[in-house]
C-alpha cells in the first residue's frame, strides 16, 4: 500500500544523483578554503613573507637601492659592539617596564574607581577613553608643546608657585626627556587598561562581595581575594598587549624627541628606523628589528603561561 502511494510522486521528481560538484560545494574544507583566501592572501603576502624577509635582510648588507649579499652574522656582530644599540636596548627595557607597571597600577585603580556608583558614570567613562581615540602623534605634539623648553605651561606654573626659578629643559635633558616620554606613554595607555579591566570587573558577581562582607572581610581583603583572582585572566591579556605595544613603540618617540637628546630616548624601533630608512642601511636596521623578536616572544610566553596556570587553578574548562 505504502509503495503504491509513493510511487507516482517518485516518478515525477526524480532525485538527482549528487554530482562531484555538488559534493564539493558542501564540503567544509573546500568551502572553508575559499572563504579564507582573502584574509590569508593579505596575511601571507604582507605579514608572513615580510617577517621572513626581515630576518633574511638582517643577514645581508642590503642598502636602499642596492641588493645586498649574504654576510652572515656580521650585522649582529657590529651591533654587539655598538654602544648606541645597547643604550637603545636599555632605554626600551626601561621604557617598557616603568611605563607598563605604572599603567597597570593607575589603570587598575581607575577601573576600580569607575566601577563605583556615581552620577554621570557613563559620561565619565566615555571621557576617560578619549586619549586612546586621538591619534598618538597628534597628542604627542600636544605634549611636545606642553614640554617646550621656553614656553612650557608646567615650567610657568611651577615658577608662579615659586617652586623653581629656571625653566625646566624637559626634552633637552636626558633624565627629564625619559620621564616625559614615559609620562606621555602612560597617559595614552591608561585609558585602554582601565576600560578593559572595567569590563572585567563588571563580570564579577556582586553576591561574592556580599558574602565576603558578611564574613567580615575588609575592602583590601575583598580586592585581594575576590577581585584580583577573578581578574587575573583579563589582566594577563591586557598587560601582554600593553607590554607588546610599549616595547615596539615608535610614533610617540618620533613625534616628541626623535631619539634625542644624545640618544637618551632612542628605542629599538626608532633606532632601526634611523639606521634603515634615514641612513639607508636596510640590513643593519633589519638586524635591530629582528633583535626585538626574542624579547617579544618572551613577553608572550610569560603572559600566556601565566594565563594558562590561572585558568587551571580556577578549574575552568579551557574553551
Amino acid at each position, binding site marked *: 500500500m505504502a509503495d503504491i502511494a509513493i510511487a507516482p510522486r517518485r516518478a515525477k521528481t526524480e532525485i538527482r544523483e549528487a554530482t562531484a560538484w555538488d559534493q564539493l560545494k558542501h564540503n567544509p*574544507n573546500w*568551502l*572553508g*578554503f575559499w*572563504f*579564507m*583566501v582573502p*584574509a590569508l592572501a*593579505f*596575511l601571507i603576502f*604582507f*605579514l608572513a*613573507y*615580510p*617577517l621572513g*624577509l*626581515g630576518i633574511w*635582510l638582517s643577514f645581508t648588507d642590503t642598502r636602499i637601492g642596492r641588493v645586498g649579499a649574504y654576510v652572515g652574522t656580521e650585522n649582529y656582530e657590529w651591533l654587539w659592539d655598538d654602544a648606541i644599540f645597547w643604550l637603545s636596548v636599555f632605554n626600551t627595557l626601561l621604557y617598557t617596564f616603568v611605563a607598563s607597571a605604572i599603567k597597570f597600577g593607575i589603570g587598575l585603580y581607575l577601573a576600580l*574607581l569607575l566601577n563605583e556608583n*556615581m552620577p554621570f558614570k*557613563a559620561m*565619565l567613562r*566615555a571621557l*576617560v*577613553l*578619549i586619549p586612546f*581615540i586621538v*591619534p*598618538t*602623534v*597628534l*597628542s604627542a*605634539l*600636544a605634549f611636545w*608643546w*606642553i614640554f617646550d623648553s621656553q614656553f612650557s*605651561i608646567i615650567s610657568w606654573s611651577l615658577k608662579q608657585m615659586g617652586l623653581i626659578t629656571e625653566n625646566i629643559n624637559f626634552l633637552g635633558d636626558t633624565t627629564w626627556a625619559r620621564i616625559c616620554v614615559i609620562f606621555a606613554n602612560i*597617559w595614552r595607555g*591608561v*585609558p585602554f587598561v582601565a576600560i*578593559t579591566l572595567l*569590563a572585567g570587573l563588571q563580570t564579577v558577581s556582586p553576591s561574592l562581595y556580599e558574602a565576603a*562582607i*558578611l564574613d567580615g572581610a*575588609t*575592602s583590601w581583603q575583598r580586592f585581594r581575594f575576590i577581585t584580583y583572582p577573578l581578574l587575573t585572566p*583579563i589582566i594577563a591579556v591586557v598587560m601582554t598587549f600593553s607590554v*607588546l605595544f610599549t616595547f*615596539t613603540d*615608535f610614533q610617540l618617540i618620533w613625534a616628541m624627541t626623535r631619539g634625542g637628546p644624545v640618544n637618551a630616548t632612542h628605542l*629599538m*624601533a626608532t633606532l*632601526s628606523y634611523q639606521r634603515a*630608512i634615514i641612513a639607508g642601511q*636596510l640590513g643593519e636596521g*633589519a638586524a635591530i*628589528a*629582528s633583535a*626585538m623578536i626574542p624579547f*617579544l616572544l618572551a613577553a608572550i610566553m610569560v603572559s600566556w603561561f601565566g594565563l594558562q596556570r590561572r585558568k587551571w587553578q580556577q578549574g575552568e574548562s579551557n574553551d
Partner: protein
Amino acid sequence: MTDLPTSRIDLKAVLHSSAPTIAKDDHSEGMSYLQSVPRRMVTLYLPLSIIVVVLLFPFYWMGLTAIKPDEQLLDLDRYNPFWTWNPTFKHFYKLLFESHYPMWLWNTMYVAVCATILSIIASVLAAYAIVRLRYKGANLVGGLIFLAYLVPPSILFIPLATVVFQYGLFDSPMALILTYPTILIPFSTWLLMGYFKTIPFELEECALIDGASRWQILIKIVLPLAIPGLISAFIFCFTLCWNEFIYALTFLQSTSNKTVPVAIVNEFVDGDIYRWGSLMAGALAGSLPLVILYAFFVEHYVSAMTGAVKE
C-alpha cells in the same frame, strides 16, 4: 533562606548611614564607606577628578593654543596662559586655505575607508569559515591569526618597504591600503568570531534545510544579526588606520600623498617661531573626526576594545 543575607546587609547599611560615627569607632569596614560623603569625597571623587583632569588637559591645551592670537602664545608675562579673551580662527584659516591640509585629510580618510572595507570583507569571510564551517585545521588557523595580531608594525616596516618597492607601490596610497589590512584583519577576525559564535546555530540549520547555500546564509542570516559587531569592527579599524604612523612615514614621500599624522610631523615643523598655533590647530582638526565618530558610537567602541581582549 536566600533573602536573609540581603535583609541583614540592608539593616547594616541603614544603621551606619544613620550613625556614621559608629563605623569610625569600631574600625569595621562593612558597607559604611559607601555611605559617608566626606570619605567618598577623598577616596573616590578627588582621585577620579585628578586623573580625568590630567587625561583631558592636553586636549584643552591643544584647543586653547589653536585659538590664541600669536602674540599671546609666546608672552607668558602679560597674559594669563590658561585663558584667552580674544580667540582667533587665523590658525584654522591658514591651515584650511593656505596649506595642503585638506588634501592630507582627504588622503587619510580615503586610505582609512578603503583599508577598513577591504579588511572587514576579508575578516567576515574568515571568521565565518573558522566559526561555522569548521574545516580541518580551523582552530589552528584561528590561533595563527591571533598570533598575527601580536606581530607589531615596528618589526615589519623595513622588509615591507622593500616589498612595497618591488610591487611598484612606493609613494602611492595603494601601498597603505594593502598593508593596513595586516594590522586590521587579525583584530576584526577575532572580534567577529566572537559575534558569530553568539548567533544560534539553529537558524543556520533551518536555512540549510530550506536549501540555502552557505553564501546565502552568510549574507541573509548571519550578517544582519551581526550588525553591531560589524559596526564595532568598522569603527575600531577606522581609528587604527587613522592612527597608523610608521608605515605611512616609510612608504610615502611626496607631500601631496601624505596622511595627516605624518604630514603634521614632517611638513609643519619648520623654523617658524609662531608655528605652535597652526601645529595645534592641525592636531585638533586631525583628531576631531575621530572624536566625533567616537561620540556617536561609544558603546560599539568599548565593546570592540573589550571584545577582542576577552576572546
